[in-house]
C-alpha cells in the first residue's frame, strides 16, 4: 500500500469522464464512498489499479483518476489477480455487478477467496442485470417478473455473503450505497485487510429494480456483540434473510497469496542462471 504524504481531495480523484449511470443509481454512492476511502487513506493513485468486468457497475474504473482495466464480462477476479501477481506493491481493486460476480463470474470467486489474493472486491449488487436492461440475476428474489421471466422467477437466489464465507474468505462484509459513511469505512478496512476482502454492496438500480425502500427497511448494522473471528456466527448472520446485516461479518489474518509467492521464491533460492540451467540438458 503506497501512500502519499500530502493530502488530496475527492475531486482530484474524479476523472473527466462523466458516469453514464441513471440519476439515483446506487453506484454513485459506491463511487463516492470509494473516492472518499482512497482520499482518507491517502492512497497514491499512481499505485492504484481498478479492474472491472461488464455491467453498469463495470464502467466504474474510467471515472477514477487511477489505473483501470475494463475487461470482459465475469473475469474481473482473474484480471485483478494477474495485476497483483505481477506488481504486489499496487493496491488492487476489483469491482462489478452481481451478474458479473455470481453468474458468469461465479467460478472465479471461490479461487480468489481460497488463494487469499490481496485485493478488495466490491460487488455492486442490485439484484438485476442493469446494463442489459433488467433481466433477473442470481440474487433476484423468487417470483420476480421481468421480460426474461414473464411468469416469475422460480429459482432460489444465491446468498453471496454465505457463499464467500464458505470459500474460506478472510474478509467478508456487506455495505449499502445509501450509507456512504459506513461504506467508506468498510472499503478502508477492506483495503487495509492483508488478503482477499469481499464487500457486497447493496446498490439499487432505480431504473429496473428500485429496492431503496425495501433495503432501507430491512438493513440493520451487525450487532455489536458479533465476533468477526467466528465464522460460524458470521454464517448465522448471513443466513438471516428477513434482515440484511451491514458491516463486517468475518475477518481473519491468513497469509496472503503474494506472501505465499514470496515464500516459494525464497524456497526456490535465487542462485540461478539460465546458463546453469542449460547444463542440465547438456548431452
Amino acid at each position, binding site marked *: 500500500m503506497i501512500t502519499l504524504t500530502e493530502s488530496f481531495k475527492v475531486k482530484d480523484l474524479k476523472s473527466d*469522464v462523466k458516469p453514464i449511470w441513471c440519476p439515483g443509481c446506487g453506484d454513485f454512492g459506491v463511487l463516492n464512498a470509494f473516492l472518499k476511502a482512497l482520499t482518507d487513506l491517502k492512497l497514491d*493513485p*499512481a*499505485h492504484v*489499479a481498478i*479492474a472491472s468486468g*461488464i455491467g453498469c457497475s463495470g*464502467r466504474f*474504473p*474510467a471515472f477514477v*483518476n*487511477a*489505473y*483501470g*482495466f*475494463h*475487461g*470482459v464480462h465475469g*473475469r474481473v*477476479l*482473474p*484480471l*485483478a*489477480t*494477474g*495485476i*497483483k*501477481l*505481477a*506488481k504486489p*506493491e*499496487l493496491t488492487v481493486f476489483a469491482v462489478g455487478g452481481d451478474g458479473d460476480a455470481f453468474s458468469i463470474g461465479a*467460478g*472465479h470467486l*471461490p*479461487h480468489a477467496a481460497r488463494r487469499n489474493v490481496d485485493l478488495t472486491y466490491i460487488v455492486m449488487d442490485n439484484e438485476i442485470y442493469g446494463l442489459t436492461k433488467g433481466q433477473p440475476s442470481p440474487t433476484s428474489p423468487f417470483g420476480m417478473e421481468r421480460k426474461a421471466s414473464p411468469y416469475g422467477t422460480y429459482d432460489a437466489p444465491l446468498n453471496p455473503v454465505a457463499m464467500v464465507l464458505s470459500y474460506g474468505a478472510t474478509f467478508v462484509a456487506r455495505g449499502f450505497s445509501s450509507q456512504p459513511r459506513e461504506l467508506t469505512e468498510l472499503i478502508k478496512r477492506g483495503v487495509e485487510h492483508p488478503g482477499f476482502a469481499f464487500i457486497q454492496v447493496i446498490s439499487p438500480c432505480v431504473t429496473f429494480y428500485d429496492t431503496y425502500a425495501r433495503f432501507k427497511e430491512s438493513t440493520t448494522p451487525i450487532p455489536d456483540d458479533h465476533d468477526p473471528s467466528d465464522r460460524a456466527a458470521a454464517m448465522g448472520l448471513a443466513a438471516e434473510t428477513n434482515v440484511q446485516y451491514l458491516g463486517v461479518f468475518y475477518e481473519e489474518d491468513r497469509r496472503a497469496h503474494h506472501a505465499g*509467492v514470496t515464500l*516459494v*521464491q525464497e*524456497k*526456490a*533460492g*535465487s*542462485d*540461478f542462471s*539460465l*546458463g546453469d*540451467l*542449460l547444463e542440465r*540438458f*547438456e*548431452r
Partner: protein
Amino acid sequence: MPVNDMVIRIGGESGEGIVTIGEVFVRIAAFSGLEVYTFRTFPAEILGGHVTFQARISDKPVLSQGDDIDVLVSLNQEGYDKHIGELRPGGTVVYDSTNAAPTSGADDHVLYPIPVDELARSIDFMRGRNLVMIGAMVQLFGLPLDRAEQMVHRRLGRFKDVLANNLESLSLGYKYAEEHFTQRPPVYLEPPLEEAKDGLVITGNQALALGAVAAGCRVYAGYPITPATDILEFLAKELPKVGGVVIQAEDEIAAINMVIGASFAGVRAMTATSGPGLSLMVEALSLASMTEVPIVVVDVQRAGPSTGMPTKTAQGDLYLAFYAGNDEAPRFVIAPSSVEDCFYQMINAFNLAERYQVPVIVLSDQSLAPRVETCARFRLDQVRLFEREIPDLSQDNGYQRYRITETGVSPMAIPGSKGGHYTAEGLEHNEKGNPNYTPQMHQAMTDKRWRKVDTARQQLVLWSNVVEEWGDDDAAIAIMGWGSSLGPVQEAMARAQAAGYKVAALFPKVLFPMPDLRIRRFIRGRRAIIIPELNQLGQFARVIQHRYSRELIRDSVEVVSLTKYQGLPFRPVEIFDKVVEVSQALAVRAGVE
C-alpha cells in the same frame, strides 16, 4: 555394417520402464556423440497400458522419426506381438527371453535373446532389470561402455546405496551380450570417438519453457492440459528462482485473464495450453488485442476436434489461431519447427508481443512437445530482447494511451508511473481510452490496430529466425509448410535431391503477419508447391492459395495440398513419394504441352 542411422523401438507395458530404458539409452548415445530424436505413444490407460518408445539415432542431425523400424526391443510377449509386423525385413529383435518368445515369421529377423530376469536375479537385484537390458543394448549396438557407466553415475548417482548394484546390472547385460553373440546386428552404431559434442538433449516443451525464461517471462498462469502440462511444471520449478511466479489457474479463461492483468501491470507474461483450452481463450484474446496488451499464448496442438485424441498430434489449430475472435482483432501467430526452434521462437514471440502490443499465439504440437532431440546449445548471447515502448511521462502532459500513430503502436504506461494513469478499455475508445462509438473513431482505431500488422510485416524482414528457406533455387517443385513437419520435409528433400530431383523449400516461422516478400519471391518460377500438413482441410494450403492466388495463377504454379490426419507425424517417405509423384506429373504434362 555400421549404419549410423538406426530406428529402434521399445515396446511393452508402460509400467515396465520402457521409457526409462529408451531415455537412458538415447542419452548414452547422445553422450557418445550421436544425434537422437525420439517418438513415443501414450497408453489410453492411466497406469499400465501399452506404450511405445521409439528413437532414431544417427551420426548426422536427425530430422524425423524415420520410416522403417530397424530394431525392436521387446520386454514381453505383447511388446513383441504388437510391433513385430512393423519391423523391416532383416531387422533386429532384442528381447527378454524370460518373458517373450519369437513366433512364426521370426525367420526374417536377427534375434538376440537376453535372459533379463535371470541375470538380474543372479545378483539378487531385480530392480536392475532395465539396466541389464540397457547394458546388452549398449554392447550389441556398439556404444562405449564407459560412457554408459558415466551416464548411470549422472542419472542415478544420487541413489548412493544402490549405485554399485546398478552399475553391476549394466555390466552384466553388457557382458552377456559380448559373450553370447558373435554376430553383430545388421545395423549398429559407430559413435565418433572424440570428446562428447557440445549440445543439448532436450524436449520441445523444455526448449519452449527455457525460451520463455530467456525472453524475460516472469508470470506464467496456466491450467493443466495434455500435451502442454509440462511447460507449467517446468516453469513452476524455475520461474521462482528468477523472482517470477507460476500460478495454476482455475481454468483457461482465468489463466489468460491473469496473463493480461500481469502484462498490463508491466511484466512479461504467458500461458500455454492445447486446442480445447485455446478455444476457451477466444474472448480474452480479443480483449488483449483491443486493449493492446502484449501476451504470449502457446498452443501445443493435439488431434481433435473436441477432446479428440489428447496424446496424438495434429496441425489443426491454424484457423483458430488466425481468426478466432468476434469481429476483427489482430493477433500474431508463430510456429516453431523443431525442438531447437522452440527456444528461438519464444524469443520472437515475446519480442513481437512487446513491440507491437498484441497477443502472440505460438503453435507447437504433440509430436514436438515431448520429443527428445539433440541440438546445438542455445546461444544465449545472441538473444536480443525488444522492450515495450513506454511514454516519457515527464514530457507528456495529458498522456494518451491509445494515441494514433503512424506505426499503430502507442506508448504504454505501466501502473505505478505517475501521470500515466488510464483505463485499458475493451469498449471502442478514443485516444485517451474513453469509450467512444462514433463511426469515425471506430474506423480510425480499427485502422490503427491493424496498422501494427503491416508495420510488423515490414520490420520483420530484418529479424532472424522468421523464415527458413533451403534447397535448389531453381527447382520447379517446392515444398512449403509450417511447424513441426520441417524435419520430415528436410529429410524427404535430402533423399529426393540424392535421387536427382531438384526441390526447394520454405517454412515461415512467423505465420502472421505472413512474410509476403519472401514468399512471393519464393513462388516465382515454380511449377508446383507441395504443402504438407497434419489436418484434413489443408488449412495452410488454403491460406497460401488465397493470399498469393494472383501470383500462383499468373505463374501457373499448382498448389498441391498433402494432408494427413491420423494423429501421427509425417514420415519422410510420404513427402518423398509426393515429390516423385508431382515431378512425374509435371514431366508428363511437359511432354504433352
